[in-house]
């Protein structure tokens, strides 16, 4: 029998023990959390509101002798002050909620296999409400439909693609960060000044103002860079002759870049990327890996005039063995067209235009119900 060693690298099977012992261990842990939360909440409520508060305080002061004078004082302060009461109350409620909810969820999953639960979830998700455009064809499971991509008709080609991330939204977010931080800094500055004026200077806060000012300057410069990028780099237009894309087919692409720009390099690429989401401890992390990069166009030392945008007609040849777009809860395969520029004096920019690749269409075999 091999004993589990939590401090060594996990090898072999994902589970070290049996499934039943795992359920029992989790249930015990969550039940303990729930009960401890109930105990702490009840203790605080009795101390605050109940008649037993005097009895409990006396018992604690008697039970905690002179050997722990600090603990007795801390208990008394925590129970006496309103802030301590609310902190312990909120923590207790959180423990009750987490312990109770998690234990209930874990116990509900006992006796049902993973496949059975997923089957029920799939059936619930497949319930469709009648709509005007409901079609009789079965959709492609786990493939994004990409209806938003074909909402806008193009001028040169069939569809104008929408950018995946708006530069204006990013600029607004950075502006909000910079303004909030600097506003908070000025509030702290007012507190420090009022302290000096009243003859009670706050030295710690005064010294803290210097590093805070450095962060504020950095945030404001970051905001200015984003503003310059948004204002200087004009609109990027990408149009495509067909959508969704299919492996082994060719599509026409039209790319236009407006603005007053002097670019060292402008590149248009077709990219296929894997994206996974996983938990590492308490963090949720996302990892990405580019599977395929096809450079469609590269221009160097380019000058763009506001009256004459840069325009280029390109062609996409999708490989016949290309993987279709895929999205599930934690994993995805994404396709996109990327327009990136190395600009001077403006900061470099990179815009993504998501596209969706479907597997080759085949009429679905229908069976009578």
């Amino acid at each position, binding site marked *: 029998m091999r004993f589990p060693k939590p401090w060594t690298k996990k090898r072999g099977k994902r589970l070290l023990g049996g*499934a*039943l012992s795992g359920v029992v261990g989790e249930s015990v842990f969550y039940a303990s959390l729930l009960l401890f939360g109930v105990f702490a909440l009840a203790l605080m409520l009795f101390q605050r509101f109940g008649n037993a508060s005097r009895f409990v305080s006396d018992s604690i002061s008697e039970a905690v002798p002179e050997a722990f004078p600090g603990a007795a004082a801390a208990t008394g302060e925590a129970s006496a002050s309103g802030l301590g009461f609310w902190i312990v109350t909120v923590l207790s409620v959180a423990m009750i909620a987490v312990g109770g909810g998690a234990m209930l969820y874990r116990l509900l999953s006992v006796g049902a*296999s*993973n*496949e*059975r639960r*997923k*089957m029920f979830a*799939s059936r619930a998700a497949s319930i469709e409400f009648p709509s005007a455009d409901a079609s009789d*064809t*079965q*959709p*492609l*499971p*786990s*493939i994004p*439909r990409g*209806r938003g991509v074909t909402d806008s008709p193009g001028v040169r080609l069939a569809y104008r693609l929408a950018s995946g991330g708006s530069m204006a939204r990013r600029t607004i977010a950075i502006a909000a960060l910079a303004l909030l931080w600097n506003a908070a800094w000025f509030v702290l500055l007012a507190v420090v000044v009022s302290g000096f004026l009243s003859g009670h200077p706050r030295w710690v806060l005064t010294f803290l103002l210097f590093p805070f000012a450095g962060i504020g300057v950095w945030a404001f410069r970051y905001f200015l860079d984003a503003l310059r990028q948004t204002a200087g780099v004009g609109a990027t237009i990408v149009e495509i002759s067909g959508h*969704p894309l*299919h*492996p*082994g*087919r060719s599509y026409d692409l039209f790319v236009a870049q407006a603005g007053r720009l002097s670019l060292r390099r402008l590149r248009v690429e077709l990219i296929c990327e*894997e*994206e*996974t*989401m*996983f*938990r590492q401890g308490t963090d949720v992390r996302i*990892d*990405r*890996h580019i*599977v395929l990069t096809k450079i469609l166009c590269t221009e160097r030392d380019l000058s763009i005039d506001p009256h004459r945008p840069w325009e280029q007609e390109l062609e996409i040849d999708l490989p016949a063995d290309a*993987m*279709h777009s*895929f999205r*599930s*809860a*934690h*994993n995805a*395969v994404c396709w996109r067209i990327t327009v990136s520029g190395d600009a001077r004096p403006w900061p470099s920019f990179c815009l993504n235009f998501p596209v969706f690749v*479907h*597997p*080759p*269409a*085949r*009429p*679905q*075999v229908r*069976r009578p119900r």
Partner: protein
Amino acid sequence: MCRADGKYEAGLPLRAYWRVGQTTIDEVVGLEVSVLWYTEGKGDEDLHVHHFVRWNDMQLQDLDLNSAHEIDCVLPLSPVSYEGTLIRIRWCVRVRLFRSAGRECVTQQPFYLVGSLEPAESSIYS
């Protein structure tokens, strides 16, 4: 499995047979047969059941576990089997046997779901 190479085209039927040997009906309290895909790799596992059949202890009384039973379903058009760097998509037929005293026995037979080799005419969404 009905194909020796284990490759099945998306949108076409899958036919497979299963049977359970070396066990008595008294030991078995439940049986599940499912056709499903799941992901492997760096990310958390995703799982989707395409076809699912379950027998409880009463229904198992009428079932001869030692003889072959058929699984017949039409495979979906997606997702096809995929061998990537961070993500791998696996298809399989999984049989889960519930025995007395909470014991379980799981076995699975992997297969490949591949896309059509014929050129596409149109998308079903268009």
